[in-house]
């Protein structure tokens, strides 16, 4: 409904659909806690989504429900219209189509060289050696890891390179939906910009849905077309970025914040400059201010 309106992409049943999903940890014990409560969601094909939430908001649980790593306590998860927790559903095929890159993915590298590590996923899908290699080479190329590194030990790479290899490891399975959990965690500004640039490039080149999980609005604001905000196990907002950021005060109550630029423009507005406050980038904000103030030749 809301989500469909966003970019004119109606949800046609392809993709992931969550119907009134709840997830409760340690059911029936004193430690029982609801990580997710009654979440309904549609993830269509070929969309760029930001999933934002504070630690403990339920976003990590949500992500693991999407590819069947967790089974909902209540409600259904459908992929292309089929319930993924039916008896004979092929979970492995699902996990190839719904790829999940965990936080600090470089911590899962284990093979002796970069190429073999990336081939691990395709091999598990039962592809023949040549096809595995082809997928791996393509994936590595698309994350900007050149042939000169293929035979290097993944442990000899720099932090940013390791992370890109790890992302390639999931990409090589040709996912239709790619979920990246905090892909920039622990990176410096340069590494962060490289990874984010890479992801948005991937989105443009390959037609797939990308879900960027983050707690930083600044990271996702300028890239995504839709933002889902989680808080206390519930879906709080699900809309295009500009509309979500209008609720910046509610975001703060959730331990989040709007992008810095939103605050700057809000401040100017409060001080009496009558401008639109939904710019997402510095350039857009500058345009808006100059439009209002009339530029240098006022």
């Amino acid at each position: 409904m809301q989500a469909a309106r966003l970019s004119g992409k109606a949800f046609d049943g392809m993709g992931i659909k969550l119907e009134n999903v709840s997830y409760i940890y340690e059911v029936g014990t004193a430690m029982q806690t609801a990580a997710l409560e009654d979440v309904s969601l549609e993830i269509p094909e070929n969309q760029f989504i930001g999933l934002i939430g504070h630690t403990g908001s339920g976003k990590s649980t949500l992500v693991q429900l999407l590819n069947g790593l967790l089974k909902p306590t209540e409600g259904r998860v459908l992929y292309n219209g089929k319930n993924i927790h039916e008896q004979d559903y092929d979970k492995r095929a699902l996990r190839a189509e719904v790829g999940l890159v965990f936080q600090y993915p470089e911590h899962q590298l284990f093979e002796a060289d970069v190429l073999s590590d990336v081939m691990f996923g395709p091999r598990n899908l039962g592809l023949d050696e040549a096809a595995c290699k082809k997928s791996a080479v393509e994936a590595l190329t698309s994350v900007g890891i050149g042939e000169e590194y293929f035979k290097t030990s993944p442990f000899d790479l720099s932090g940013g390179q390791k992370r890109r290899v790890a992302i390639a490891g999931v990409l090589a399975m040709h996912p239709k939906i790619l979920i990246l959990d905090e892909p920039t965690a622990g990176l410096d500004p340069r590494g962060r910009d490289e990874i984010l640039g890479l992801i948005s490039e991937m989105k443009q080149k390959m037609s797939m849905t990308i879900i960027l999980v983050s707690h930083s609005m600044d990271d996702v604001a300028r890239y995504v077309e839709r933002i889902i905000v989680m808080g206390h196990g519930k879906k709080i907002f699900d809309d295009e970025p500009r509309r979500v950021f209008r609720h910046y005060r509610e975001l703060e109550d959730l331990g989040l914040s709007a992008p810095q630029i939103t605050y700057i423009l809000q401040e100017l507005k409060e001080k009496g400059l009558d401008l639109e406050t939904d710019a997402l980038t510095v350039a857009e904000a500058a345009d808006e201010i100059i439009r209002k103030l009339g530029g240098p030749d006022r």
Partner: protein
Amino acid sequence: MFKDITLGQYYQTDSLLHRLDPRVKIVGTLVYIISLFVVDTFAGYFVCLLFLAAMICLSNVPVGYIVRGMRAILILLLITMSFNLFLTPGEVLVRIGFLKITREGLIFSLKMAIRLSLLVIGSSLMTLTTTPNQLTDAIESLLNPLKRFRVPVHEIAMMMSIALRFIPILMEETDKIMKAQIARGADFESKNLIKKMKSLVPLLVPLFISAFRRANDLAMAMEARCYRGGVGRTKMKPLIYEGRDQAAYMLLVAYFAICVLLRFLRLPFLI
């Protein structure tokens, strides 16, 4: 599955047993285990059972909680019992096909089962009422005389305590790596043994690397906080014996004396 094992877990409450000096509890547990092997009659085991029951009462740990922990060793118990039941030679009571149950086997396996159950409950009572920290402190203090023989007592205790601190962290990490590899199509549920061993590589390699990285970081952090071994170190929570601890030692001596008496005063009506 780890939730069922109460062996080695701490049960937080306040009781006389919880407040007892951990050294008394370690010594007490050792004495209790020895007593189980000193005694060899059902009457003797009854005394051991009474002693344990009294301790459980003093500990404020619910009996149900302790019994639930026994489920983990039930299979072990059944196996040892049936071995002794069928394989002990002697006066045959029942014959089922080629299997025979003897009078001696019956008595022996019953005694074995009682001994084993009391042993497990007794030692888990110690861990239920003592935090891992107190345990390592107590071990360090009890082993202190060995320092004279150049046994690195402080280092052993420190290693134990660090291991205990990192077990939950590494368990969580194992879970995370496993999920990440499953997301890449890995199969950890294969019934085929060779496949199963192979599937562990993508789990174990990252886990070891992470453990080494953590060890390296931790060593650096400890040095930065002036850690330089046990020499010249003071204690935030030193172990000091109090009146109740001395009373407990005396009780232990009395209990052990009874057990020894029961063994050597062979009263005719005891089997």
